[in-house]
């Protein structure tokens, strides 16, 4: 469902409810419900805010840091999160996620997403199996080819695994805005469930071709580097939020930046990463309330570019 149609139907429901005597609590309940998008290839709903783990969950054997990351996960699930994304490139992140999931009693809502990242197709199955064991999950919901590395070889494996029921969705990733031409070709030629790319309020190249293409092809979109790895937060945190940010419920910069991303109609889920439970709580605030419409999105861009 597109953002516009989702906003419209939501507004219509809320408007209709307003005439009823019990309108207030119901409207609030709807407003408080996590914002979700459907995965086009299945119709399954996903909350629009997920969790990345680049750097933040790579804490090695430090027990204190592992426990803090488990609390980050606790906050994520408690606030309605589902999708957790990782990669074999991220060092000990898979082990630390597995530790956190175990400590939390294996939350059933988990949507497990990881990647395969090796030059050789023959190494892919072993690497994915190592990741699965580290997470302690029966299977991954989503497996992606990391940074398009040997994508044709790995997609062959992923298609076979999907057919066998060893994973539910397959996809490809890129980041930092790189290799968009190659990604476009793969998106056009391959039966992908998901694509993952970099998109944020200042890096909007994906709006030109990849996001429309994903919508046309029925491919769900995960968005990485929503804050340019903290850089956008640091850049804007000294400035006030515009008064009109309250119209879509953004009370801090992370929510402002995340709501810009997930209000794009083609985006399914953004995957910000954090090492702190309080920052996770801030991020997850973007999962509730309204989303900015097209006019507000233009104002958001103009505002941050004026800072």
């Amino acid at each position: 469902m597109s953002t516009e149609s989702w906003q419209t139907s939501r507004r219509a429901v809320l408007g209709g409810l307003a005439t009823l005597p019990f309108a207030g609590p119901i409207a609030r309940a709807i407003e408080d419900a996590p914002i979700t998008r459907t995965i086009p290839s299945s119709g399954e709903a996903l909350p629009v805010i997920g969790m990345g783990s680049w750097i933040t969950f790579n804490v090695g054997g430090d027990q204190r840091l592992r426990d803090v990351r488990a609390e980050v996960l606790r906050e994520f699930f408690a606030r309605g999160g589902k999708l957790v994304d990782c990669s074999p490139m991220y060092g000990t992140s898979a082990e630390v996620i597995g530790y956190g999931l175990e400590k939390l009693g294996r939350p059933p809502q988990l949507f497990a997403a990881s990647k395969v990242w090796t030059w050789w197709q023959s190494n892919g199955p072993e690497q994915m199996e190592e990741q699965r064991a580290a997470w302690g999950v029966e299977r991954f919901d989503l497996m992606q080819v990391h940074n398009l590395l040997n994508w044709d070889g790995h997609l062959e494996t992923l298609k076979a695994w999907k057919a066998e029921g060893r994973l539910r969705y397959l996809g490809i990733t890129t980041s930092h805005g790189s290799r968009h031409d190659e990604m476009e070709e793969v998106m056009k030629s391959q039966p992908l469930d998901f694509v993952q790319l970099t998109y944020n309020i200042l890096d909007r190249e994906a709006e030109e071709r990849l996001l429309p293409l994903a919508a046309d092809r029925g491919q769900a979109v995960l968005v990485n580097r929503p804050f340019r790895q903290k850089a956008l937060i640091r850049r804007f945190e000294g400035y006030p939020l515009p008064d009109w940010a309250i119209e879509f419920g953004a009370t801090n910069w992370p929510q402002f930046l995340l709501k810009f991303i997930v209000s794009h109609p083609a985006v399914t889920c953004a995957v910000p990463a954090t090492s702190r439970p309080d920052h996770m709580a801030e991020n997850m605030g973007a999962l509730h309330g309204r989303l900015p419409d097209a006019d507000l999105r233009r104002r958001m861009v103009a505002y941050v570019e004026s800072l």
Partner: protein
Amino acid sequence: MFPFDVEVLDSSYALYNAAVWPAQAVALALALIAVWLSVWPRRGAGRAVGVLLAAGWLWCGLVFFPRYLAQLDFMAPVYGWAFVAQAGLLLWALVWRPPRPPAPARAAGVAGLALAFLAVCGLPLVSGFGEAGFAAARVVGIAPGPTVIFTLALLLLAEGRVPRLLAIVPLLWCGVAAVTGWALGVPESLAVVLLALPAVGLLLWPARRPG
């Protein structure tokens, strides 16, 4: 593009130091022996120094990078092989083809001694005053930064016909340290760069090199 932050790097050094203890004490003792042999050379001293230096690079290449840092950093195996290669170069240059020993130029000798002192004492202090404390101190012979600086120091003391090849890996490590220091804000890494660059300059200075 590091897959970890400075807190995790310090934490991993602390865990590493705890795991390899008392290797630090042995490494420090061997480093002092190497300095002693360099300052008061005797028959076979050059070869002994070469073996001791190569041992430090081998330890980093075969133990620190693959068994500890590789958990966190996918680049660690590459660093490990570079350190093993440097150990091989040191063995080739200092053990099988040791430099003939004219006395070191005075400036280079003083600089070499100062650098050796900083590698053995200064860098552990810099890293030890970080948030993780001395548990995360980088120790010569078992941590890459001090090992690079200590090697350059003893090469300055060795004088003479030190092949330029020996400067390649230390220079490459300077690049890694510079990026680490800049991206993660690691003082020890920045100190390594500040010490290594002039040391390499002195080592390759034409006046020090025989025709």
